């Protein structure tokens, strides 16, 4: 407990907003998904740090993080299936080219 709680929170905030930048600035659908993972990770760090420093007797933050990791894995698998399907239809995965619902 030698590191102050603010240090952890600042690291996770930087990570979150780098994710926001990547989400808005990239063109490739896969890199957008990666930025999403960065944001989810930052939120996970926040949950665990709050649990550890502010409420050490409880396990709520711990389980929130566990469930978020599970949901993130499911969501990524599905999103990648959709992206590969898009690639099969229009031969690239740039967001500005994906403007038709049906090919």
């Amino acid at each position, binding site marked *: 407990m030698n590191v102050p709680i603010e240090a952890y929170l600042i690291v996770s905030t930087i990570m979150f907003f*780098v994710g926001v930048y990547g989400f808005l600035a990239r063109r490739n659908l896969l890199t957008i998904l990666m930025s999403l993972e960065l944001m989810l990770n930052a939120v996970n760090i926040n949950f665990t740090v709050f649990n550890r420093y502010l409420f050490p007797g409880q*396990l709520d933050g711990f*389980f929130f993080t*566990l469930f978020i990791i599970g949901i993130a*894995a499911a969501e990524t698998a599905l999103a990648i299936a959709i992206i590969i399907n898009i690639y099969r239809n229009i031969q690239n995965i740039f967001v500005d080219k994906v403007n038709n619902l049906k090919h």
Partner: protein
Amino acid sequence: MAEQIIFYILAAVIVVFSILSVTSKRILRSATYLLFVLIATAGLYFMLDYEFLAGVQISVYAGGILVLFVFSILLTSHAGDKEKPRHWGRLLAAALTAVVGFGLCLYIILNNVFKVANQIWQEPTMQQVGQTLMGTDKNQYLLPFEAISILLLACIIGGIMIARKR
């Protein structure tokens, strides 16, 4: 002292590699940088004494999701492909959003007074984790656990339905 040094190394790794990951032109490199960020996050969990969470982070994120990413990158792009950057106005707007949001959050974090608890900490034992996951009392999580299992089943079926050849 050693704890602080390790924390600052992990923090530097996270910050540098997450920035490299969203700015790198080659997508495979950006996936590799993301792997470093995820492993450093597992290191932070180790520092907070959540060994179980760190193990889950490494096995699910670094072992599962990253492999999926690398597979789909290799399926959807050719070697040596570089991503063209977007219009500079778009980049500027994104950077501005990120910087303003970061400033706001930094202001809130530095001005809030956190009531850090002085309780004696002990790491949750495996038995405690299992009982909390499987119980139905207050502060126990059987219902979300079942919901996650249904979600994973739906996800498997959905993945097969979406990705199959017609």
